[in-house]
């Protein structure tokens, strides 16, 4: 279970997140939506321990991990998989090397790694791409390699930062089908940031609307377009008129 208790993040004088309180139960699927530069990616990186909160507490499965050193965070991170907004594929490794990297670092046997890499690449529609380098991939292909890498080690928590950005509508649907099947099978907790709200709500159960650095609204994903908050409704419907600022 993930708990953010009145968490804030400041970069210098700029407050990116303020007073964020959020609970994500084990096995839940939570979507994070909001306008550009509202702090969505920072929120996800904070949960991954890549950004330290300047106030508040982050508790994972009952353990307060706020301010933990990199060494002490290692066992926590070992249970987390993450898809980065800009893929974060390693330039110096092939697709096979990238996807298998988490398993190789854990000491898995080479044949096991190779088989699981093949299975993952087939699942994301990139069978046969093992030998390619990231520079040879399109943006959508990089995204799918990133998803494969984030999920290959069967983590307990998977963080997705814009999992379908750059993908066409058909591929987007296939991706969410894949993620649903993965999470149905594993029961892993999922937290996904996405600007494609219509597609996101087919995968998550709850959405959190981050607005001006705060968790402005939390509610069921299926009915977010009819949320009681007018700011949320305007954002989700894409309306130009309304109280939404920025």
């Amino acid at each position, binding site marked *: 279970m993930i708990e953010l208790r009145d968490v804030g993040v400041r970069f210098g004088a700029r407050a990116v997140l303020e007073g964020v309180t959020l609970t994500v139960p084990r096995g839940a699927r939570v979507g994070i939506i909001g306008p550009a530069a509202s702090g969505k990616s920072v929120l996800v990186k904070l949960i991954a321990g890549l950004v330290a909160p300047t106030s508040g507490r982050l508790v994972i499965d009952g353990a307060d991990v706020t301010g933990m050193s990199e060494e002490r965070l290692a066992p926590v991170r070992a249970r987390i998989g993450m898809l980065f907004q800009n893929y*974060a594929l390693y330039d*110096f490794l092939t697709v096979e090397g990238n996807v298998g990297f988490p398993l190789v*670092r854990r000491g898995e046997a080479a044949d096991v790694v190779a088989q699981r890499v093949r299975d993952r690449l087939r699942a994301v529609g990139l069978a046969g791409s093992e030998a390619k380098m990231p520079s040879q991939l399109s943006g959508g292909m990089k995204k799918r390699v990133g998803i494969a890498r984030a999920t290959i080690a069967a983590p307990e928590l998977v963080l997705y930062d814009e999992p379908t950005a750059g993908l066409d509508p058909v591929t987007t649907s296939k991706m969410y089908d894949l993620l649903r099947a993965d999470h149905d099978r594993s029961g892993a907790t999922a937290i996904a940031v996405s600007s494609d709200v219509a597609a996101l709500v087919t995968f998550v159960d709850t959405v959190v609307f981050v607005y001006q650095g705060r968790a402005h609204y939390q509610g069921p994903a299926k009915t977010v377009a009819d949320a009681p908050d007018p700011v949320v409704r305007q954002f989700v419907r894409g309306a130009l008129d309304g109280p939404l600022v920025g």
Partner: protein
Amino acid sequence: MLGENAITNIGSRAVAVSRELGGITILFAQILRALVPPRLDTRELVKNLHKMGNRSVPIVALTAFFTGGLMVVQAAPFVQRLQATSLAGWAAGYAVLREVGPILIALMFSGRVGANNTAELGTMTVTEQLDGLRALAIDPIRYLIVPRVVSMMVMLVCLTVIGDLIALLGAMLVAKAVLDIEFGIMYASFVENLAPEDFLHGVYKSLAFGLSIAVTSCYFGVTVRGGAVGVGRAVNAAVVAAAVSVMLLDFFLTYLNV
């Protein structure tokens, strides 16, 4: 006010330089801590040794050859005037082994290897690859940076040794061509007048230069901000910082006669 602006500029530059020096010192401490115990990623180490060393041999050889020849050309008027052909080898070799060789090879190494290192690490930083490693509970210092630092130190020493030999060869060839000094005379001049300490002095310097080039290039790489433009700025800053550190280290190591 012109005076006030000048003082403000000096002050802000001093603060900026202090911040960079502090950051470099912290990175150096993190590297030392990551070496205890010395668990290096072997594949990364071997890859970097090859990339930084083997591929630098041609440019270092070229630099060294002309450095040795240059020392003979510069000494030629005095050698001819004083008829001191037996000292031509000493004149060229002493300068090359103790000073010019290590410095020029280090500067060439910084421009080629150091700049490339900063660009690589900078690109990895702006594309979140370092965050990707941390998300997998991999310490980027231990996995990426320590192998690069070790590789750069080891390879600069090796390249300096190779460069010294090629420089002396260049000196011999140019001495024959310009001053008609036989190879045997030059060789005897080297052997009779140059001491092992002269060679080791240059080697110790190259070790120190390698460390400073490695740490500065890595520091500017991992602290990049601002996308591709930031990477370019970081490369420039790394090369300048490495060059300054090489000159400062050279002065102090020469003064201390290490």
